[in-house]
């Protein structure tokens, strides 16, 4: 009886008790969610455009953030350091195409996936050899003040992150759905050989996609790095992006965003209101439970394309 009360009655009474606090929890969740979405976006981009699940996305976030901090530590002014990092990420995309993808045209998705696992270790290693493995502070001058609106506490930094996320997503969604390059990218994802036969230059397309996702990784790296310092564990936030992807669908840019928001809000609410029933620390595993439930009932995610296989 008491268990039922703790699970199904008390949490809702708590929510009703203090609506302002509830709103604060939801907003904090939404803003954390945006940060998850930023990481998930990088995955979706590469998956949409090359059918590859890029295991190294987390390492790319780390690598981008390390490069930026490294440049700034050497006294490069912020705007120049940003440009420099973007160039490094583009160069990285070219290298990946040249050294890895070019040799794997027309291979199974799983083989490309294995290759990205290798890339993951390589990037983590290379980033730390080049820039050291200490925790670094990243401050690019985003204001970090808290203020109150209608009694709800908000943080400028989180709002800035949300704004950046929104701009990024709109741009990418339009780019993918409306432009010629977007169509070429989707074509490459569907069938390498057919794409080649209509004259789509596979190599150029790959460099574009990996560059774009490198830049998205940089944005995610800046946001996470500024929030919690640039450190090795940054590459692990990729793990949090997995449930986001399962919820949103691997092929949907809007799905990555909404999936991120649901996970963000869900885990905050679960932690605060249901945490006591489980002895706390739900936040760590709630997302994965939710993903598991989705895998069982809706494996293509909320917005993913349902693939019809004919035999």
């Amino acid at each position, binding site marked *: 009886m008491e268990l039922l009360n703790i699970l199904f009655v008390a949490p809702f009474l708590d929510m009703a008790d203090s609506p302002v606090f509830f709103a604060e929890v939801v907003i904090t969740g939404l803003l954390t969610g945006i940060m998850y979405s930023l990481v998930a976006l990088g995955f979706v981009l590469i998956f949409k455009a090359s059918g590859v699940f890029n295991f190294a996305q987390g390492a790319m976030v780390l690598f981008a953030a390390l490069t930026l901090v490294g440049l700034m530590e050497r006294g490069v002014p912020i705007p120049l350091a940003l440009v420099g990092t973007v160039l490094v990420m583009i160069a990285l995309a070219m290298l990946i195409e040249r050294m890895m993808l070019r040799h794997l045209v027309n291979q199974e998705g799983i083989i490309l996936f294995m290759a990205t696992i290798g890339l993951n270790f390589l990037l983590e290693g290379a980033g730390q050899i080049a820039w050291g493995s200490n925790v670094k502070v990243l401050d690019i001058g985003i204001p970090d003040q808290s203020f109150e609106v209608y009694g709800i506490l908000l943080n400028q930094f989180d709002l800035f992150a949300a704004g950046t996320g929104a701009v990024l997503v709109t741009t990418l969604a339009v780019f993918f759905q409306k432009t010629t390059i977007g169509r070429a990218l989707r074509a490459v994802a569907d069938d390498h050989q057919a794409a080649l036969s209509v004259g789509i230059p596979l190599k150029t397309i790959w460099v574009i996609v990996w560059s774009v996702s490198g830049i998205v990784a940089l944005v995610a790296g800046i946001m996470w790095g500024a929030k919690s310092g640039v450190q090795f564990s940054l590459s692990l936030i990729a793990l949090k992006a997995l449930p986001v992807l399962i919820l949103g669908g691997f092929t949907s840019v809007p799905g990555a965003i909404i999936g991120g928001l649901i996970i963000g809000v869900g885990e905050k609410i679960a932690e605060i209101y249901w945490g006591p029933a489980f002895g706390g620390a739900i936040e760590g595993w709630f997302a994965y439970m939710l993903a598991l439930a989705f895998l069982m009932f809706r494996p293509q995610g909320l917005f993913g394309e349902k*693939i019809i296989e004919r035999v």
Partner: protein
Amino acid sequence: MARNIGEVLLNVEGISISFGGVKALDGVSFDVKEHEILAIIGPNGAGKSSMLNCINGFYHPQEGMITFKGKPRHHMLTHEAAKQGIARTFQNIALFKGMSTLDNIMTGRNLKMKKNLLWQALYFGPALTEELEHRTKVEEIIDFLEIEAIRKTPVGKLPYGLQKRVELGRALAAEPDLLLLDEPMAGMNHEEKEDMCRYILDVNDEFGTTIVLIEHDMSVVMDISDRVVVLDYGRKIATGTPDEVRANQDVIDAYLGVSHD
């Protein structure tokens, strides 16, 4: 047929390619003239698809030379072959399954897009005008192939025969000079085959497109092709008009089998 066959468009000279110990093609030579329909036939594993793959650059032959539009080449990249005016369809349909019929055929226009990447990315101004021009051209192809009703349907949901037609549409969208068709009628019923024959003849007649096709259905091959090349175990064993080939003893042996003792 009273069509005016022109100069040699494609010349294949002594092409050989092997995979491991298997010689897929062994010194094959033939030519294709402008405005011609040439069929490549042969038993399974004769090297027909390998031949198409060499022509459009998927395979790089180890020996031999391919001359297209007077330009000899030893080795070519697939998207460059497409740029020079070679389009193709595949034995196992290779469409972009998640995309609509319209988008699939639009990808065929990819090479005709002139505006640079930045404009295309912005989808604005000249790029938008250009997109609309291409859209008009694509609608013509859709009309031509009578697939108006499935314009917006994701091709993964279409029945097999229609998918083959969409794939032909995508190849046509590039306005190719040379069209390679790998078993365009495989797995079709009689009616669908007749439709496909009609489209192939119309493409050849109205757009003047040169066509090289692989087909197993002999009545189709004999009906629509000007000339036939016969391959067996990677070698060319005969070439000529359908009637000549039909009467050739080597061809009959290759198809019916003969004891080699």
